[in-house]
C-alpha cells in the first residue's frame, strides 16, 4: 500500500507522474546554460516571413 493505494499498477502511475515532472526539472536545471546557439540569418529570415505571411494571414 503506497499513499493509500493498494494496486501497484496505480500507485506506480501516481509516483511516476511526479518522478517525470522531477526529471524534467532536473534536466532543465542541469542543462540550463547548455545549447545556446547564435541566431543565424536563416532563423531571422524565417521569423520575418512567419510574421508577414503567416501571422498576418490570420
Amino acid at each position: 500500500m503506497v499513499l493509500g493505494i493498494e494496486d501497484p499498477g496505480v500507485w506506480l502511475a501516481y509516483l511516476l507522474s511526479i518522478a517525470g515532472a522531477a526529471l524534467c526539472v532536473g534536466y532543465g536545471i542541469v542543462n540550463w546554460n547548455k545549447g545556446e546557439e547564435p541566431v543565424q540569418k536563416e532563423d531571422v529570415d524565417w521569423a520575418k516571413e512567419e510574421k508577414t505571411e503567416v501571422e498576418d494571414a490570420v
Partner: protein
Amino acid sequence: MDLISIILVIFYLMLTGYLGYLGYQRTKTAADYLVAGRSANPIVMALSYGATFISTSAIVGFGGAAASLGMGVLWLTVLNIFVGIFIAFTFLGNPTRRMGHHLDAHTFPELVAKRYDSRALQVLCALIIFCFMPLYAMAVMVGGAEFMAPIFRISYDAALYIFAVIVAAYVIAGGLKGVMLTDAMQGGIMLVGMAILLVATYGLLGGVTEAHSALGAMKDQVPGFLKAIGHQGWTAMPTFGFAEPGLAPPGGVAYHMWWILISTIVMGVGIGVLAQPQLIVRFMTVKSKQSLNRAAAAGGIFILFMTGVAFTVGALSNVYFSQKEQIACRIVDDAALLDPGPDGKGKLAQLPANASDEVKARAKRFVTYRLPGASDEAPLNYALWTDKTEIVRGEGDADDVLKPHLIAVLRSVGPGTTMQGNTDTLIPAYVRSAMPHWFGVVFMLTLLSAAMSTMSSQFHTMGTALGRDVFEQFARHEHGSKSIHVTRFAIVVGIVVALVMGKYVRGNVIALATAIFFGLCASSFLPLFVLGLFWKRMNKAAALTSLLVGFLTSALWLLFVNGKTAGGIGLCQAWFGKPNLVPATWSLTWTVVDPIVVALPLSFLAAVVVALATRPMDPAYVDYVYGGPKPKA
C-alpha cells in the same frame, strides 16, 4: 452571479484585453523574439506551450473519464510528461526547429513537403488536418460548454453558443497571433486554478492517503455495467486479458475496460501528442536548444498540475459524491420518473401523461430539485433515487437538504443520458457542488483560458492548412490576399463545424473525439515526421505510403471495427447490416482495441520497408534538408 464573481470575470476580461493590446503595440509573438535575436522567458514559453497542449478536453473530458475509469488514467499523465514534454523537448524540438528554419517551413504540412520534396504530401497532410481537427475543436468547445451551463444556470445549447461567440470574438481580436504574454497568462491562470482544486479536494477528503484509502474502499460500489467490463475499483487497474475467440458476453467483454483505458486513452493520446501539427510548429518559434532545455523544466511541472490533478480529482470525486455531497435546495418531486426505454439502455425521457403500467414499471425514480435563488421556471436538477438517498425537509422557509450518496457516474444520470450517465458533466458538477461559488468562477476562467489557448492554435492550424498548404499549392498563387481569404474562410468553417457537432453529439464525447484525432495524427504523421527528422534514407515514396497506410488503417478501423465509433457513425450498419465487421469467431476484445495499436506499427513498418526498397532521394537534396546548401534547380 454574485459581486465577487462579476469582479473576477471583469478583471479577467480586462487583463486579456490589456495583454492583447500590449501584443498589438509591441507584437510580442514568438516570431518577434526571434526577429530581435532574443528568446522568450523560458517560463513564459513553457506556459504558452502547455496552455496550447492542455485544453478543456483534458481537464473536463479526461477528468470525467477518470471519475468513471479510476486513477489508472494517471498512466496518461505519465506519458504526457515523459513523451509529451521530455521526449518532445529533448529529442524532437531542436531538430524540428533547425529543419523548419533551414527549409523555411511555416506549417507542419509545409515541413513535410520540403523534407520530402513533395507537394502531394503537403496537400494530403493539410486535408487530413482540415477535415479532422474540427473533431478536436469540438471536444474543447463541448468541455467549455458543459462547464459553463451549470455555473451560469443556462442550458447546454446556450452555453455552447456563448462559448462559440467568445471564441469568435477572441479570434477576430487577433487571438490567433499567439501573443506569448496572453498565452502565458492563460497558462498561469490554469496553474493556479488546478493547484487550488487539488489542495481543496485533498483537504475536503481528509488528506492524501485518507482520500485514496476512502476511494479504494468504495470498490464494492462499482456499478454492474462497469464491473462487467473489468472495473475492479477506482484505485485498481482493470482486469487485463484478451477474450477467447468466439466467446459471447459476459466473458467476451470482461477485458474491455483495460483496452479502452490503455489503448485508447493512454496510448492514443499519450503518443498522439508527438504528431500534433499545432505543437510541432511551436518548436520552430524557439530560439535555441537552450530555450527548450529551460522550458522542459517548467513544462513538466505544468502538465503534472494539469492532467495529474484533473485525473486524480476526477477519480476522487466519487468519494465526495458518495459520502459528502449535501445539497441545500427545494425538493420539487421525490418520486419523478424517467423512462430508459424498453431495453433499459435508451436515453432517459419524461413519461407521457398516459404512460402504460409497463412503462411506469420500468421507469427509474429520481429526485428533482431547484437550487436556492432559482426561479420556478429554471430547469430542474435530477438525482437518481437509490435506497441510500436521504432527504431532510426544511422547516418553514428553510431549505431542504438532499444527500444523494451516489458514485460519480450515477450522479451524472438524468434526462437525455442513458443509465450509464455522461462523464463529461462530472468535473463541472463536482466543482459546482464541492467548491465555493467564487472558485466555480475562477475555475471557469481556468477552463476558458485552457480552451482559448488551444482553440486559437487549432484554428490557426486549420486556417493555414487550407489557405497556405492547399489553396496556394493548387492556385500556384503567391502568398497574398486570396490566400488570406481562404485561410479566414477555413477558420470560420472550423468554428461552425465544431459548434454544430458539439450541439448534436453531446454525451461522453470529449475524451473519445480527442483520442480519435490524436490517434489519427499519430498513425498518419508520426512515422514520416520522426523518421524524416533523423533518417536520411527516408524518402518521398516511403512517406506517402506510411501516411496512406496509417490514415486508411485508422479510418477503416474506426468505421468498421471499433464497436463504439463504428456503431456511432453507422456506416457499417448501413452498408453491411451489422454494427461492426469483427467476425463472430473472433475475440470480442478486438472491438475495443484502438486503431493506433494496429495502424501506428503498420505505418512505421510501411515507411521502413518502402524506404529500404526504393531509391534514396537525391543526395544533394538530402544534404540540403539536413543543413547543406540548397541544390541548384
